[in-house]
């Protein structure tokens, strides 16, 4: 990963590269713009078949703390992307809690994109509760930030519920990114999948703590958990601590974690074909990140995020092609 200089986003935040089929909303320092919050709770609007894009922007240095809720009624299918940004170089402190309530047979595709300045601190808790046969797929892509902590508590409360969680964190400089996943199989016949990957450069510190809990009567559970970290510098440190707590006996569960560096053999092979060292390293990092990006089902978002990840890894500013502003 090349040294990256975070470029603050424009004062008046307005993304000019629209996602197709999306309805966009803004939340400025915890205040929703043009849509209401009841009892201090920001309800993510549902726009039928449209993708709901909610852009959270920090503009003032006061700490901001807010609550968000995503409701998925029975049988519904929703797609939501939440983006977090900062507009300046101030130290923004954000406390966010996101409640996700999934009724029977509901379906949610959720993407969380985080791109904040290196001085800011952002703590998010995602509290997911799932009824029978509901399915969530969640991708957390952390491009940049100072001190980021993401906690996901996922409760599989009804039979045949599914949770597919993945995340990619890119940490350089003095960044600190913590991920905690608490996957609770409270009911049988549920499936959960976790794939979290990190690329670390500079003096970055990251941690992944994951627990899969399978209750006593949750038979026929399938639960997988993996955390892989790629260290690009000698001074970066990744902690990985996945574990399983299983009380049922008829289950398929596995977990694994790795912390490694770039493979020398691969690098030499690529360089022997004339691929310069930095480019060869970049290809390896992209390949590493690819496994998470591949899980994003919306092709447009996947391509856009892949480009942003590439730019981030190259140390270029994360600017969409065709955009004059420096938002995401």
């Amino acid at each position, binding site marked *: 990963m090349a040294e990256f200089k975070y470029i603050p986003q424009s004062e008046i935040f307005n993304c000019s590269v629209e996602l197709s089929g999306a309805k966009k909303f803004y939340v400025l320092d915890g205040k929703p713009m043009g849509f209401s919050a009841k009892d201090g709770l920001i309800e993510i609007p549902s726009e039928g078949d449209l993708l709901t894009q909610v852009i959270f922007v920090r503009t003032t240095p006061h700490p901001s703390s807010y609550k968000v809720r995503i409701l998925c009624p029975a049988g519904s299918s929703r797609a939501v992307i939440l983006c977090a940004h900062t507009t300046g170089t101030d130290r923004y402190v954000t406390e966010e809690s996101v409640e996700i309530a999934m009724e029977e047979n509901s379906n949610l595709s959720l993407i969380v994109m985080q791109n904040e300045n290196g001085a800011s601190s952002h703590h998010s808790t995602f509290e997911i509760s799932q009824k029978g046969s509901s399915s969530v797929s969640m991708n957390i892509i952390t491009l940049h930030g100072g001190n980021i902590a993401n906690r996901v508590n996922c409760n599989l409360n009804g039979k045949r519920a599914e949770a597919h969680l993945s995340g990619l964190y890119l940490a350089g400089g003095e960044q600190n990114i913590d991920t905690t996943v608490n996957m609770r199989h409270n009911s049988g016949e549920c499936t959960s999948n976790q794939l979290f990957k990190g690329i670390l450069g500079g003096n970055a510190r990251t941690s992944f703590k994951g627990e899969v809990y399978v209750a006593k009567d949750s038979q026929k559970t399938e639960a997988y958990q993996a955390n892989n970290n790629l260290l690009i510098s000698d001074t970066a440190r990744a902690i990985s601590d996945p574990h399983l707590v299983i009380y049922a006996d008829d289950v398929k569960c596995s977990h694994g974690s790795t912390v490694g560096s770039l493979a*020398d*053999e*691969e690098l*030499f*092979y*690529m*360089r*022997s*074909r*004339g*691929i*310069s*060292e930095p*480019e060869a390293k970049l*290809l*390896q990092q*992209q*390949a*590493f990140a*690819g*496994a998470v990006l591949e899980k994003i089902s919306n092709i447009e978002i996947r391509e856009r995020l892949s480009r942003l990840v590439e730019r981030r890894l190259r140390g270029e500013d994360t600017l969409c092609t065709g955009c004059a502003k420096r938002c995401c």
Partner: protein
Amino acid sequence: MENLLEIKNLHAKIGEKEILKGINLTIKPGEVHAIMGRNGSGKSTLSAVLAGNQNYTVTEGSINYLGKDLLKMSPEERSWAGIFLGFQYPVEIPGVTNVNFMKTAVNEHRKQNNLPPLSAAEYLKMMREKMAYVEMDPSFSSRGVNVGFSGGEKKRNEIFQMAMLSPRLAILDETDSGLDVDALRIVANGVNRLKREDNAFVVITHYQRLLDYIVPDIVHVLYKGKIVKTAGKELAAEVEKHGYEEFEK
């Protein structure tokens, strides 16, 4: 004609172990050299040193390539200058597709020659053409580099890459091992099609069989890190018949 490559008194070690113990070898454009020798005699070590593998340390001697000090060049600089190594054990790179890999390589070569990168269509055309050289199915292009390729498919992929980069000096390290008879012919044809007056090949092999297809001008026998015999193509047949015992003195 000017020499393409001049190796003089080359000594190289890995860790504390000296493996090459004074290699002398001169290669002229248009020539095909074969190197034979027992397992462990240092054939792959020599190719690795030529390609710039930093796991090996050169302790003595020199390598001159087209008037330049090869040992001062990085692996990618050597590739840009026209050196190609066909690996005995091609490396798998999960997550990097064959097409992305070779496209990046070809475009970096073009950049060195101040040429603009190929468009997707131009690249595809070139790739299809070169894949046909080695009768490789285009579906391989979307797979991870060498990932899950059979032994023979990996070797074909090496020759495909060689065709894409069209080198001045190609070192093929046991490209024939693990190939069935048809694949052997295909690979040999690929090499023969790429032969020009201004380029040269070093073919490392254990078998006369390959040399029936790719006829060498000069055959060397490597023994314990030294070239102990150099002769014409008849030497390969001799080795095949009598083994290496006579060189062990």
